[in-house]
């Protein structure tokens, strides 16, 4: 099995606010990310496809096709947009990199026809990223075992 990763960037605005919480709770939990005027990031998306190389082409998938899918499904939807207001898939969710990764996974999974979607990684900054993968135990679990 070979894993192929394609990277694409998009820039977007967001802020964190849960309408079910008080203004004080929002400020306590989300800190400066709660600023209602928003802020932005240069997001970096890494999409990994796993599969066996086709014996004829030597490729797991056509990267041009993946590039077009990423452009259509992610960049056209999110680049230079406000994630709280302009991306319906994120409606009702806090636009954290965890949730963005899950939304992108759900957008891409049905579109990948060659190989299998293996990992969606969303960097909010070089020091913070979220991974969405299919494997692992779904139970997760909070707190140290």
């Amino acid at each position, binding site marked *: 099995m070979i894993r192929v990763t394609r990277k694409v960037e998009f820039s977007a605005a967001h802020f*964190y606010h*849960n309408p*079910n*919480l008080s203004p004080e709770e929002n400020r306590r*939990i*989300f*800190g400066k990310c709660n600023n209602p005027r928003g802020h932005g990031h240069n997001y970096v998306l890494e999409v990994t496809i796993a599969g066996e190389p086709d014996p004829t082409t030597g490729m797991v998938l056509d990267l041009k096709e993946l590039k077009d899918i990423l452009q259509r499904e992610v960049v056209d939807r999110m680049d230079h947009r406000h994630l709280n207001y302009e991306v319906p898939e994120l409606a009702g*969710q*806090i*636009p*954290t*990199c*965890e*949730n963005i*990764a*899950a939304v992108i*996974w759900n957008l891409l999974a049905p579109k990948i026809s060659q190989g299998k979607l293996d990992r969606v990684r969303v960097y909010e900054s*070089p*020091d*913070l*990223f*979220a*991974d*969405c*993968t*299919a*494997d*692992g*135990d*779904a139970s*997760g*679990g*909070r*707190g*140290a*075992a």
Partner: protein
Amino acid sequence: MKISVTRRYRFAASHRLYSPELSEAENRRVYGKCSNLHGHGHNYVVEVTLTGPVDPATGMVANLGELDPFVEREVIDVFDHKNLNEEVADFQSYVPTTENLVQAIYRRLERFPAARLDRVRVEETSNNSFELSREEARTLRVES
């Protein structure tokens, strides 16, 4: 679907690779210039990966408002601008290789109460990194 979140932190520290169980000549042979009597240092990068359910109220696996101060207290305050051999209790009986350092850091961070530690990766330099996952950590024990 499994979601994890990874955060990178930095600290700078000095160390000397030297095993009291080996002779001077063996230490020089095994550790080379890393065994230099007066030590040397690195800018370490610590990559911390947590997994768990995404809290619908916050959209987060772990709130960085809780994780950052925890890592600051448990790791950065302990290791940053220190001599690992002389000032960190973890290395009283272990050589401060980054293999041992990643285990010591793992033990400290697995106490984080709000999400499950999945992996710790330590870069000693941009060319060398050392990684310990939850599965592997079960079989390794370093007192910390």
